[in-house]
């Protein structure tokens, strides 16, 4: 590319003539994402109070091995290293965690909020060197499409959790249809997660974005339009699903600890 001689008048960190409160959004992002990471780390390592009756926390779903009735393959595996306290969440959280970490929206958000790269638009940065996502380590963000693929597999599993959350034990060992507040929370969480994952930029590319003659296949065109529609609100679904997944865990945890009683609607 042609080079030009722009006098390098590098501004200091945070330096700007913007008079507005430009720091509010990155600060809220820092607090929001930071709080979530702290909570999910604690919740994932706790290994307790992650299920209540027919409810299973989305942080622990699918429960591959575990002590609850939701476990797919029975009790904790013998090969699990004894020095690490077992928690079913540790086996699966890498997938949704990796999906969010490499998500195009979150990348832009946490580069600003955590790396100040830049802190906000037209605000001075703390570092002089920069290679963006063109070199290691950030070039690894290109793995996002594979995390997206894995995240898509989680959606039917979470949908099955919602189905299970509609069948309550009537006390005599028979399951009866019902709806509790937990059912609604888990259903809303799954819907928001679906909107978030299905609006992913990589999924949009895979479903038709990489094709120039979209109209050649009417079904593909419709799918692309649907994904594009969700993609326009990707940021909103990213945040809404982040809050809903944490709230789902908090609700089930409180019920399991006996601090809160599940409210049965039906």
């Amino acid at each position, binding site marked *: *590319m*042609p080079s030009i001689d722009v006098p390098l008048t590098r*501004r200091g960190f945070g330096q700007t003539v*913007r008079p507005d409160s430009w720091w509010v959004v990155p600060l809220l992002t820092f607090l929001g994402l930071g709080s979530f990471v702290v909570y999910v780390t604690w919740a994932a390592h706790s290994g307790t109070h992650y299920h209540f009756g027919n409810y299973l926390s989305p942080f622990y779903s699918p429960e591959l091995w575990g002590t609850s009735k939701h476990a797919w393959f029975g009790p904790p595996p013998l090969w699990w290293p004894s020095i690490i306290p077992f928690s079913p969440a540790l086996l699966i959280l890498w997938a949704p965690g990796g999906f969010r970490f490499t998500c195009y929206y979150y990348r832009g958000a946490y580069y600003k909020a955590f790396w100040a790269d*830049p802190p906000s638009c037209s605000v001075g940065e703390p570092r002089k060197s920069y290679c963006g996502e063109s070199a290691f380590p950030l070039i690894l963000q290109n793995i996002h499409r594979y995390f997206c693929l894995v995240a898509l597999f989680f959606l039917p599993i979470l949908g099955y959790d919602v189905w299970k959350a509609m069948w309550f034990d009537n006390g005599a060992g028979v399951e009866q249809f019902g709806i509790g507040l937990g059912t609604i929370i888990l259903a809303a969480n799954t819907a928001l997660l679906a909107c978030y994952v299905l609006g992913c*930029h990589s999924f949009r590319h895979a479903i038709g974005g990489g094709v120039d003659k*979209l109209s050649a296949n009417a079904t593909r065109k419709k799918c692309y339009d649907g994904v594009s529609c969700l993609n326009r609100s990707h940021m909103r679904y990213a945040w809404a699903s982040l809050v809903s997944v944490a709230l789902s865990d908090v609700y089930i945890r409180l019920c399991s600890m006996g601090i809160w009683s599940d409210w049965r609607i039906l």
Partner: protein
Amino acid sequence: MSGHGSGGTNTGGSAVFRIWRGERGKGDFADYKTEFSGGMVVLDVIHKIQASQAGDLAVRWNCKAGKCGSCSAEINGMPKLMCMTRMNQIDVTKPVTVEPMQAFPHVRDLVTDVSWNYEVKKRIKKYKPEKPGADGQWRMQQDDVDRVQEFRKCIECYLCQDVCHVLRDHHHHDKFIGPRFLVYSAALEMHPLDTADRVPDLHAEQGVGFCNITKCCTKVCPESITITDNAIIPLKERVVDRYYDPVRKLFRVFTGG
């Protein structure tokens, strides 16, 4: 009389304009107190100051309708078109700063030399349509053109280039073409009839990987083009297809694609 009202409610009064004065990057802010009415835009005020207080104030402008992209500047620190920034959207209780764009060589006062952009544009592979039909005509579906039509709204004001920190703060003009030309490349690359391959250039010398998705370009675009989501990220995905996706690479090995 001081400016009354603030943040979008002022209907007129007086304001202090803090305008960058100087040549070739050297200079300082100068304050000008002036009257304005609610219907004025920043460019009107700049012209008023030019006519009454600073006859030698250099400012580039042309259409005054947000279509020529000439009057790009930084108003209160954010890249904007002066002709599309209404005075009733500005808080005049504080001095209003007006500066030239920071990502390009300064010429004088509010004027910068944006010719680097013209040189970059020359190096992007031109539109190369596929062979026409038997009747010598090219045909394409409206649905396919709709996607690239958005990118054709660009007026080349270069506000997106100015706000992009890769150019503005890191001065990687020799490694990165900037949002404007990623939009231009996307318009060509996604065109239903185009056959040229721009992906290797985007990956290497045009540096699409430098973009770290701050979306500042989308924020400042006066034509509301969804630059990051609809142009840059789809191009990044095409680069991933070609260079960073092992499964696709393997598939190409077996299919010879």
